[in-house]
């Protein structure tokens, strides 16, 4: 199905199943421990041996000698993979570095060996016996120091790195009210609950890979590229995933090493990274330095907006697009957004939940707060004043498909009691706590991506959906079942959804918050085909045929789906394609965050007291799973504001705090009751589902709202994330 024009009325509009807060259909299996995650799929490979990865202890340099003899002689050891016996391996184009080092080492904890043994304990013990000698060389590990050497990155999948509208510099120079602020955000780790894990088995020249991966087709492609085997020979399966947040968009060392280990010992091998290996062996969200300049008229209209961002990466791999939201969020005739990329020899930086926007809001939305204060305007009012219903770079020819930012801000302000906020900082106290309120807008783009699905109806009238789409804890199983149930007119429990096998039709996968909308649209498209096939088989006019209560009906006749399907059943497959809809319409989901913080006047600790997010994201396919996505993302955004930071040891080139005791994600005590309100919206230009992405929206902006609330509470303007107590202490009044 080619989706090129706004969707007209369609069966999804009925809202009999879609739009209802159904529990996740995989929820029971997950909470009862019966959902088999990658490392636990023992029944598929009962004789799997255990592999333990050995990572490089230097960041940059060369392996001069690798001695595996002691490891090989250790009890239970079946083999050791290193670059010496791994055969020819290529670097996948989607990776910054190779997944097995040797002789060159590109980053700390890059895999140098896999030790395979009968038991996990034997493998772990022998892993410590692998002796590797290195010739280290000094690398570049300090973004601030390399900033001056940063270059214009090569245009990648997101288009040119810079954009310019009007004449920013002169407009900024003329503007009567200006803000010029520089912010830093640190490296962050995905720290999904399930570390990367895989079991690999070879059947002749066929590779079976049971893994934990967000993008099945990419996994096949990249594995093929790395190992030099044809994609048809690779089967990837990943039905349950314990979180990904972007960290599992690409195959990582667990999968490739498991495949190499299994090939070496001619037996299935399972590999899970340890928690401590996740930050340095895999990918992370890169640190940024961001300068935001805003120039406005005295009445608050923005005249000049600039957002310049610097990030670093291994082998000039890719930049963090911190300026993304700034291209779209506010009106203003003169604009400049640039991204510069420095070479750093830290582990690969790559996508993490809302790449670009998640960190970009942290500066833009604080700068807006600064501007509001200078203008003596309410920060909500300033944002409302600068709303724009079209892409401000392209002009009215590219309107937003839907945009209710103002509604989110106003509804949020009303519910939160924003009008009671004292605009003068450091005025409200509750015992030892200085109290402040902060607001931020939220924008996350709504990419749509080609996706395919197959739908079958069997002789009992039961529906099966098949697609290589993944469910990374987001609710894909449930919303796809709801989509099929709505389209085919059957109850939800008559639908079985089978996902994440590479022999199923290729979907969009899970990432960039395109997964729900795009994959549901593919199920919609396949169901349209199946409805046509059923009508055709019955000799009925599809235009006049309806599907309801397990039956199809047309012109007074009616037939159970079971009968219509016939003894062999019927199936249909289709792909949704989005043509140039992204070009024609700017597409984003929107929201507004409201936060109340307390800052301890003695200790400088910041604690969240209240928080509210008001969002719009087109049609909400399932309010329960959508809310879960939003509150999860908001919690992560609070982490970015208050505690999450991968600390770089700039001498040795690695992230020092590589475990969950020292990399501080928020815990329950950090997150009070989170109020989420989703405003009604139907976006007919986004997809036939009329939905937009919701999975990454919640993380955008909330950290800035926290920063603004801290300012309101204390009068202290912080610009270097995260805001741990030490950053406030010197600025707080004496006790």
């Amino acid at each position: 199905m080619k989706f090129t024009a706004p969707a007209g009325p369609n069966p999804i509009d009925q809202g009999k199943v879609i739009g209802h807060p159904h529990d996740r259909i995989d929820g029971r299996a997950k909470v009862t421990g019966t959902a088999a995650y990658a490392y636990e799929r023992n029944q598929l490979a009962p004789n799997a041996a255990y592999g333990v990865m050995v990572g490089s202890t230097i960041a940059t340099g060369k392996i001069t000698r690798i001695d595996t003899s002691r490891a090989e002689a250790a009890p239970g050891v079946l083999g050791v993979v290193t670059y010496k016996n791994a055969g020819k391996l290529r670097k996948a184009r989607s990776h910054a570095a190779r997944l097995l080092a040797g002789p060159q080492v590109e980053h700390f904890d890059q895999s140098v060996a896999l030790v395979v043994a009968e038991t996990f304990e034997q493998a772990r013990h022998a892993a410590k016996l692998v002796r590797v000698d290195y010739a280290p060389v000094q690398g570049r590990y300090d973004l601030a120091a390399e900033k001056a050497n940063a270059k214009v990155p090569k245009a990648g999948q997101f288009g040119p790195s810079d954009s310019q509208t009007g004449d920013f510099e002169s407009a900024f120079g003329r503007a009567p009210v200006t803000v010029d602020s520089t912010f830093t955000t640190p490296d962050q780790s995905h720290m999904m609950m399930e570390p990367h894990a895989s079991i690999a088995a070879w059947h002749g020249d066929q590779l079976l890979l049971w893994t934990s991966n967000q993008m099945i087709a990419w996994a096949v492609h990249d594995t093929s590229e790395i190992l030099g085997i044809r994609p048809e020979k690779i089967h990837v399966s990943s039905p349950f995933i314990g979180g990904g947040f972007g960290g599992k968009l690409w195959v990582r060392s667990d999968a490739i090493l498991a495949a190499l280990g299994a090939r070496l010992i001619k037996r299935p091998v399972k590999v899970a990274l340890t928690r401590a290996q996740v930050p340095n062996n895999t990918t992370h969200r890169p640190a940024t330095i961001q300068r935001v300049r805003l120039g406005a008229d005295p009445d608050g209209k923005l005249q000049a907006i600039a957002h310049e961002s610097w990030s670093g990466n291994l082998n000039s791999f890719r930049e963090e697009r911190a300026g993304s939201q700034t291209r779209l969020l506010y009106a203003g005739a003169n604009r400049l957004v640039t991204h510069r990329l420095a070479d750093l020899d830290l582990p690969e930086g790559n996508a993490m939940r809302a790449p670009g926007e998640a960190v970009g809001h942290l500066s833009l939305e604080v700068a807006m707060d600064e501007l509001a204060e200078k203008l003596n305007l309410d920060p909500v009012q300033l944002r409302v004043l600068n709303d724009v219903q079209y892409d401000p770079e392209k002009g009215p020819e590219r309107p937003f498909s839907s945009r209710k930012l103002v509604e989110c801000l106003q509804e949020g302000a009303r519910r939160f009691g924003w009008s009671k906020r004292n605009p003068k900082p450091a005025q409200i106290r509750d015992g030892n706590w200085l109290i402040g309120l902060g607001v931020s807008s939220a924008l996350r783009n709504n990419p749509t991506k080609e996706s395919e699905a197959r739908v079958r109806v069997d002789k009992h009238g039961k529906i099966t959906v098949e697609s290589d789409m993944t469910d990374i804890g987001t609710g894909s199983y449930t919303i796809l079942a709801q989509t099929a149930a709505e389209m085919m007119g059957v109850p939800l429990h008559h639908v079985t959804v089978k996902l994440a096998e590479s022999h199923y039709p290729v979907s969009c996968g899970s990432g960039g918050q395109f997964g729900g909308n795009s994959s549901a649209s593919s199920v919609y498209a396949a169901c349209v085909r199946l409805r046509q096939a059923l009508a055709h088989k019955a000799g009925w006019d599809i235009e006049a045929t309806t599907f309801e209560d397990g039956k199809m009906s047309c012109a007074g006749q009616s037939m159970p789906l079971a009968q219509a399907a016939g003894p062999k059943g019927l199936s249909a497959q289709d792909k949704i394609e989005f043509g140039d809809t992204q070009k024609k319409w700017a597409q984003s989901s929107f929201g507004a965050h409201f936060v109340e913080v307390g800052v301890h006047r003695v200790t400088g600790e910041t604690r969240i007291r209240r928080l509210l997010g008001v969002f719009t994201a087109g049609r909400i396919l399932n309010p329960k799973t959508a809310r879960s996505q939003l509150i999860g993302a908001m919690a992560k955004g609070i982490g970015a504001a208050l505690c999450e930071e991968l600390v770089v040891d700039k001498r040795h080139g690695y992230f020092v705090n590589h475990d969950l005791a020292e990399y501080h994600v928020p815990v329950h005590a950090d997150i009070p009751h989170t109020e989420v309100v989703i405003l009604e919206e139907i976006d007919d230009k986004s997809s036939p589902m009329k939905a937009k992405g919701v999975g990454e929206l919640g993380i955008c902006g909330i950290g800035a709202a926290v920063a603004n609330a801290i300012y309101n509470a204390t009068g202290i303007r912080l610009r270097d994330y995260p805001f741990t107590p030490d950053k406030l202490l010197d600025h707080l009044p004496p006790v």
Partner: protein
Amino acid sequence: MQPFTYQRAQTPQEAAQAAQKHPHARFIAGGTNLLDLMKHQVETPPHLIDVNHIGLDKITSAGDGLRIGALVRNTDLAADVRIRRDYPVLSRALLAGASAQLRNKATTAGNLLQRTRCPYFYDTSKPCNKRKPGSGCSAIGGYERNLGILGVSDACIATHPSDMAVAMRVLDAQVETISPDGSQRTIPIADLHRLPGHTPHLETNLKPGELITHVTLPKPVGGRQTYIKVRDRASYAFAAVSMAAVQLPDGRFQFAFGGLAPKPWRVEGAQNAEQILAGARTTPQNAFKKTLASRLITSALQGVKLP
């Protein structure tokens, strides 16, 4: 993890003797620290002596004070009515530590003897004087933010991470031990831990094979007792700085601190921040600890109710 042998001791005596028989053996109690260290091969004991069944899991009265068995779990200690009533600072310190799951396992002796959380100590790819004497200190000049400012040396700036020990220090607890030869002794908690000097690998004054059997608390001092723990998130994080403060009925204060030093830090008789923080050695990353400790002391002296 290195292969090791394991034995389950039935009495304190047996445990201590076993330790003498197996040089480099370790006692294992809750295992919440030791097992992690073994997995990282920071510790590689060839033999483990399980002390969970030696019968030291009771809290009993001892004169005007209390005698706490070495195996009493942190959860049970924190919840004990006598502790909550007469030594509230200890109960609060315990509850500020780790998580409920860890406290259910963690023991009184194990908590006192837990090792530093310096990230380089855990990372065997990096030099560390505490782990490998003479190899150098990776923390100095590296990530030092949560490391110590008092009692530290050029060889090591690690801190002792316990919350419980800080409260015990302010309460003048005593540690009872038994040695392999059957002899018993009592060590004031002030003398249990050593400062690093040139030998940061020697952390306590316990002799090889010496087993902690009890911790005793003297007669309750009464007064106002508080425990404040400042940290980067609201729970489940080690202290940046923690303070156990007791204002005695006569108005004088007793303070002890966590997060600042290689042992629970107390300057006997000190009544102000200057005296307590004298000799502090800070780096740009951890200088905030001095400010923070000083603010905590000042607010306690002013009678500010924290938190």
